[in-house]
């Protein structure tokens, strides 16, 4: 098993010097930072609007409702969405590159004429993927926490950091899933470019198309501001109404659940309190409500680990040799 460590170290060294990977990660960090800045600006605008409204109401002798609470982690909504869309895309690129560069050059022949164990190559690549994303996700979430603290001028407590750590763990698993899916496809296809195509098509379908279908099937998303709001129906009545349409909602939910991205989003949004129904809910209660999302994500990720482990072998990689 020593060769797994050797392969992994080589991979980490190679990746740490890749300018393309560095640029992609800087880009991702910048985008997330930007999204927090914009969310902070948006919040301040809303607060200013509220203050103006409250002042006007007081001047007229009325008593305004309390100001909207700032839940700093809610500012991460767009940032998390970027992680699931752009981060997923970058994870595909990274995973594809791990095999494509070996196939593109003939380093595979140099490797496989050495006494490697049957799964050493796959083991080294998988271990490197796991470590790279661990480091990157820790760095990204450090950026996120700093952005919320500094740009959002928010205060974070111990619970908030714990919630961020849980979101980071989900993000780690999510990125590993995409990288290893792309790695598997690049291994299984004779031309690694075909693997990239398949991975990109899957990314498109899982990250964008399926959530889009689920989103546009949502009755509340049919008009700006929400269908129920336009009918002046509150949240409780909305829920009661929708119980009459359980089969439609179940179907819509099923469509969304087939997307690992949606599983990731639901769990992370719940822990960060982005979805108002989970906001400020104790962590145990969030787990009770969303454990199936976390477990499905984990299961999908474990599946891709197994697929990468079993598919990235001498037989599949060397099929193209004359």
């Amino acid at each position, binding site marked *: 098993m020593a060769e797994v460590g050797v392969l992994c170290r080589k991979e980490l060294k190679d990746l740490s010097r890749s300018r*393309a990977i560095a640029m*992609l990660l800087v*880009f991702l960090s910048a*985008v997330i930072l*930007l*999204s927090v800045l*914009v969310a902070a*600006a*948006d919040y*301040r*605008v*809303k607060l*200013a*609007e509220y203050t103006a409204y409250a002042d006007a109401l007081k001047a007229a002798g009325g008593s305004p409702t309390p100001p909207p609470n700032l839940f700093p982690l809610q500012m991460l*909504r*767009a940032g998390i*969405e*970027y992680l*699931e869309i*752009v981060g997923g*895309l970058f994870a595909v*690129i990274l995973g*594809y590159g791990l095999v*494509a*560069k070996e196939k*593109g*050059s003939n380093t595979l022949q140099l490797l496989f004429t050495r006494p490697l164990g049957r799964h050493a190559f796959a083991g080294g690549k998988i271990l490197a993927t796991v470590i790279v994303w661990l480091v990157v996700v820790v760095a990204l979430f450090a950026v996120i926490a700093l952005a919320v603290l500094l740009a959002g001028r928010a205060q974070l407590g111990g619970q908030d950091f714990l919630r961020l750590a849980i979101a980071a763990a989900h993000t780690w698993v999510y990125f590993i899933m995409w990288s290893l899916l792309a790695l598997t496809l690049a291994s299984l296809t004779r031309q690694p*470019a*075909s693997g*990239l*195509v*398949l991975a*990109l*098509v899957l990314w*498109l379908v899982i990250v*964008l*198309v399926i*959530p*889009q279908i689920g*989103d*546009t*099937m*949502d*009755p509340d*998303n*049919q*008009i*700006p*501001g929400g*269908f129920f709001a*336009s*009918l*002046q*129906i509150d949240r409780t*009545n909305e829920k009661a*109404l*929708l119980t*009459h*349409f359980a089969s*439609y909602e179940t179907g819509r939910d099923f469509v969304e659940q087939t997307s690992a991205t949606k599983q990731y989003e639901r769990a992370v949004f719940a822990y960060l309190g982005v979805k108002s129904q989970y906001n400020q809910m104790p962590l145990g209660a969030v787990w009770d409500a969303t454990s199936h999302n976390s477990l499905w994500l984990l299961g999908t990720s474990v599946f891709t680990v197994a697929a990468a482990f079993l598919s990235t072998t001498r037989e599949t990689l060397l099929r193209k040799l004359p």
Partner: protein
Amino acid sequence: MSVWVATIRQETVAARRERLPQFLLVVFMAMIAASAFIGSAAKGTVTEVYQEAVREGLTSAPNPFTTISPLYYARNTVIYIILIAALLAIVIGAQSTLRDRRARTIDLVLSRDVPPVKYLAAKLAGTGLLLLFILAVAALVNIACIAVAIGSFPTPAQAARILALFGVAWLFLIPFVTLGMLNGIRCATATSGLLLPIVVWSIVIFILPLLGTAAHPVSLLNPVSKSAPAESRFFELTSALTGPLSLGEQFKSTTALILEDPQAAGTAEGGLLVILGFFIAACLALLMAGPNHMRRELHG
């Protein structure tokens, strides 16, 4: 004239035989066909929800969906054009120039009496025609599926509007073709030739709108436009800067007007001008920046 004909013919044949565009084309056509049925399912449910709400006395507001035109069922198409067809356009464009560099056939072409600008223009014309054909078929599929979903054919005026949507889509997609072509010419490796334009696409579609309107990326996947951002100097400034560059949002708002979306406000001229501006700038950029680099060696 023979350079044009030969190049256009070669371009369309080669692009048709590549696997990556084929995959994306299948996904695109499948989603175009499905979009009418998705819209139909959503509309049916919303109507039932409204009737139930009225029955239970929860609302006295008028049903916002009483007079839904068949064009309503085409609105998801707009999203699939932004998501899938734009990627398809990038891939077709990038493969077009990468193909020449990968096989070094560009040396064989340019060692003949073929001006590089003319060759590149002919390649763009070839991919443009192929895309036009794809969109024409998609339009017909879209109209046919809407007819099946609602049980009757759209009126000629409505069909014309759907065709106009796909016409604007062609203008919207050509800049992505040229982006792919230009990057295919200048990139160091085939992989970066494909991936860099995809990153640019993700910026244009998902990041620029956030700066201008604080719109969340996933909400941009919904054909219903996000409400205008809260009024502030910050968003006035960012919106003024990024609004015209948010090609995807411009396309969404323009096509919402073409499809007579009741929620769409304003006129289509502004959006159309932006799309046309991008179209012209992208073609010029390709023809000005491309020819000098076409023979660069491709690594990996």
